[in-house]
């Protein structure tokens, strides 16, 4: 009795302090995004003074600068944020759903399938003739992979089956992509395919943003709806179901949400990976390993990370511009190794 009474004030303070730190984490990430956004708008291929850039953002000043800032730098910024946000939250959801810190959006094979759709349009030359051929084909690829995964999960397949199916789908997409490259009679087409798959947000327009944004937004909303169920899944699938979680619904939300977010971004920017793996993993200790609390910070941190990588891509001047996807892999792959070592240590 006395224990409970003395514990009460301590507990309340602790609960409140948890809330404050979650809030401040998100605010800090938002602030970081703000700073990076300013930097992103200011740097580019041509240097303008910061005041001119800000004015141009509001439609004031030299027409040329306005065009560059609004039609080139702004879409680049928005796309980078959309990609990073989508990847971040999708990674957090998948890691929570599959209860595995090594899970990430690529594991479902959706980005590989979207890439394959895009490569096919390059192969047949459609991407040059019809402007929307490539994005549409990429989304079709993502949708196909999604449908297969969804039907598998709806028939109550186990988590392992879903992972294996994702790996199989991804493997198939990659082999078909390699086949297209192999059969392509034109070495320039192969180059184009490869460079597209490396992932980039260079020279994208507001049309691309308009194309990708609805999908990313829809995907993110679906993903955020899984938050409570992810907490319950900490206890395992049986206990979660006994707590009222509809496992089929959660899987559907996760898979479809990921597809929308990833499909939308791959369609306009090519393949960008590792963000969905790295970001949730880094943030998890900061939210006390609570799955539901991880979603929003992962979204924000993912956006910040991709934007930072894109800024770096523009600053590094060694001849050919380093593609965004390459930079995120360069950050992500060594981190992946580190993760494996740490997980192995803990198991031992």
């Amino acid at each position, binding site marked *: 009795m006395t224990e409970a009474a003395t514990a009460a004030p301590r507990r309340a303070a602790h609960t409140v302090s948890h809330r404050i730190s979650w809030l401040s984490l998100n605010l800090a990430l938002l602030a970081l995004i703000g700073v990076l956004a300013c930097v992103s708008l200011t740097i*580019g*291929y*041509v240097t303008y003074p910061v005041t001119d850039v800000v004015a141009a953002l509001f439609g004031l000043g030299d027409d*040329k600068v306005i*065009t*560059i800032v609004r*039609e*080139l*730098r702004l879409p680049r910024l928005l796309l980078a944020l959309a990609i990073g946000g989508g990847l971040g939250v999708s990674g957090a959801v998948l890691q929570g759903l599959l209860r595995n810190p090594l899970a990430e959006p690529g594991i479902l094979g959706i980005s590989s399938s979207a890439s394959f759709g895009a490569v096919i349009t*390059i192969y047949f030359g459609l*991407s*040059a003739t019809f*402007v929307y051929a*490539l994005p549409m084909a990429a989304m079709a690829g993502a949708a196909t992979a999604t449908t297969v995964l969804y039907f598998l999960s709806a028939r109550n397949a186990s988590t392992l089956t879903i992972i294996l199916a994702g790996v199989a789908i991804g493997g198939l997409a990659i082999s078909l992509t390699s086949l297209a490259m192999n059969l392509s*009679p*034109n*070495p*320039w*087409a192969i*180059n*184009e395919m490869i*460079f*597209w798959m490396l992932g*980039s947000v*260079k*020279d*994208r*327009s507001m*049309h691309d943003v308009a194309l990708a944004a609805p999908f990313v937004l829809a995907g993110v909303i679906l993903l955020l709806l899984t938050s409570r169920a992810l907490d319950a899944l900490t206890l395992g699938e049986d206990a979660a179901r006994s707590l009222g979680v509809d496992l089929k619904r959660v899987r559907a939300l996760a898979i479809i949400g990921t597809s929308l977010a990833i499909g939308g971004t791959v369609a306009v920017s090519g393949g960008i990976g590792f963000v969905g793996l790295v970001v949730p993993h880094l943030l998890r200790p900061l939210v006390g390993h609570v799955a539901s609390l991880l979603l929003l910070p992962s979204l924000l941190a993912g956006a910040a990370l991709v934007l930072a990588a894109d800024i770096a891509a523009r600053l590094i*001047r060694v*001849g050919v*511009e380093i593609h965004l996807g390459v930079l995120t892999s360069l950050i992500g792959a060594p981190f992946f190794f580190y993760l494996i070592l740490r997980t192995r240590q803990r198991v031992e």
Partner: protein
Amino acid sequence: MARRAAFCLAVLAFLAGPSASAHAETPKPRAASASICADKYLLALADPEQIASLSWQATGPLSTFAEEAAAYPSNRGGAEEFLDANVEILILNSHGSMELRRIMGQFDVEMVVIATTTITFDEIAQSVRDVAAKLDQTARGEALIADMQARLARIDPQVVEEDAGPSVTYFRPEGGGAGAGTFVDTALRHAGFRNLQADLGNTGWGRVPLEQLVLTPPDGLVTSFFDTAYKGVNARFSSHSLFTRLSAEKPVMPVPGRYWTCAGPMLIDAVESLAAQRREHFGGGHD
């Protein structure tokens, strides 16, 4: 379609030139190029004031005109750069920079696309005409074409017509080659060689299997890019025992890779280099 129309308009404008120039002298359009291939066209055809920038590759190892290009600003292929420099005409390849083509279409920039499927000298001439027309430099374009044709005519017309020259196979360091339907094939034939790979029915940029070369060895080897390729790529194929034996037994005729990064006016340089090496190794020919 649009290009033909523009071409007709250009011809009309050219014909009406003298009377037009009596009125205000309209400045020639500012142009930039986004690839090494386009750079060559721009440098060859435009007035120095017209050139806003050349691609960053223009001063690199793949360029035959690095010193000339150093005088001009260089671009990284970013749309911002072209907009900032008030470029009106952008010359680029049909492949590569897909996004650049997409986005520049929204601004008031006219794009001239050089097809990577350009193969014959006639097609190169057409390309030159198209670019010249857009740059308002039709006279210079015709002069360039005339120069190309004159230089072609000087290369052993008889040998070329008889099509009885020595047979060669083309090699790149990673093992690639050139069959029928490539501009390398065009260059080889205009230089008086027979392209063994094309004769065997091969088309495109693949390679004749080494086995086949054992059965029907060529009279000589034409190599390219071995000087600029990375050592690793170089070593794997070129250290193959069959290839080393072949290159020890037959004459090897290297052509600098920068002569033919694409089918452009500089292809004639490659043809001349090949013709000279043919005379050196196989003798004969009329000059």
